[in-house]
């Protein structure tokens, strides 16, 4: 029998530290596969965030830089401007890129910064134990919205890919999900398209990926996927929102 599915070279040997069923892991794998398939492992420079994925720097086989919370895109900008011949990507959570780093995200899009930004939206601050994120849904309970997010007080979730699609300078904006095998494959395709956008010098690419946080949502991994489908996929704009030719 032939191996039809095995570990990509884009990943190091290290086992993930993520909680059981956390889809950060799926996203890591498809991102690493994209790097391998586009022959970027020896060219790419990745930027790790602060968040549950802060430790992703040890998982990807390419060179990695660890950024301060919210600053991955600024760090990525510095790296790309220093070495335009390298493919630069950031891997960030919703709090990282959508709250503390929001100015950096939108400004980079406006600059048409030629980097690829991966946005893992699990509608919560995973790392710090489940606080409200800019993407937390109305009514969603978190440790800092204990009675459910009240838009009157805490505001509305930010639909970051939608917003970025309205920024001149953004080149490829997609909003995908890793809830089913089919969607996982589509998400991987979007990642590759993001990298290709960069390699063709077209400008800022941004792939938002809906992800689960079974631990802080207080659900089993399978239930978390269902919750994502029923609540997040219906709330956030999905699909390819912008494709610059």
């Amino acid at each position, binding site marked *: 029998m032939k191996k039809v599915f095995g570990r990509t070279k884009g990943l190091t040997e290290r086992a993930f*530290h993520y*909680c*059981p069923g956390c889809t950060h892991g799926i996203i890591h794998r498809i991102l690493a596969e994209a790097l391998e398939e586009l022959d970027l492992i020896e060219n790419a420079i990745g930027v790790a965030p602060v968040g549950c994925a802060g430790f992703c720097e040890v998982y990807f086989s390419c060179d990695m830089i660890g950024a301060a919370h919210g600053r991955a895109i600024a760090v990525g900008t510095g790296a790309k401007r220093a070495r335009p011949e390298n493919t630069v990507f950031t891997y960030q959570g919703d709090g990282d890129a959508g709250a503390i780093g929001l100015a950096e995200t939108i400004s980079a899009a406006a600059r048409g910064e030629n980097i690829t930004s991966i946005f893992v939206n699990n509608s919560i601050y995973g790392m710090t134990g489940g606080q409200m994120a800019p993407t937390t849904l109305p009514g969603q309970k978190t440790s800092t919205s204990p009675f459910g997010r009240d838009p009157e007080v805490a505001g509305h979730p930010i639909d970051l890919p939608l917003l970025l699609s309205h920024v001149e300078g953004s080149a490829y904006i997609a909003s995908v999900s890793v809830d089913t095998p089919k969607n996982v494959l589509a998400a991987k395709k979007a990642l590759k398209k993001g990298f290709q956008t960069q390699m063709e010098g077209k400008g800022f690419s941004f792939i938002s990926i809906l992800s689960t946080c079974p631990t802080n949502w207080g659900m089993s991994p399978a239930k978390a996927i269902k919750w994502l489908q029923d609540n997040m996929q219906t709330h956030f704009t999905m699909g390819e929102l912008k494709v610059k030719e």
Partner: protein
Amino acid sequence: MEEKMVFAGFGGQGVLFMGKLLAHAGMLAGKNVTWIPSYGPEMRGGTANCSVIISDNRIGSPTVDEPTIAVVMNGASFDKFVDKVKPDGDLFVNSSIVDRTTDRNDINIIKINANDLAYDNFQTSKLANVIVLGHLLAKKNILNKEIIFKAIDEMVGEKRPEMVEINKRAIELGMSV
């Protein structure tokens, strides 16, 4: 009297609760107490532990480097703490899960098959922690049953009154074995 204790185990085993309950009871008994959890990234899918000090005197250093009593609920915790226990100290081991041994003979190892007991008596492994705590109280005489029950009334009664009785029974079970 001064006991420096560590409670350690796997994420869902309720080790933080064990320590809190004991600290709470210590407070009710008029003792000085401190409780410190481990915190940080290692918590993500890893082990959890807390340190508890109960003392008749003011507690200076709240950290516990050499526990006088350690409770280990799983194998990883056994490995982590077995060498740290103070000579002449006690190591309570959840033998339903932990099958490790040690060469040390300067500490007392007290085994209790808490998960089995919990499952046999309450049809859930969830109360293993409370059973171990009961056992510890019986062996070490730190605090009496009444004060622990009062702590259960206050801590559990507030949020989940229906769980008060079963927790008390688990304490008693632990004490009796």
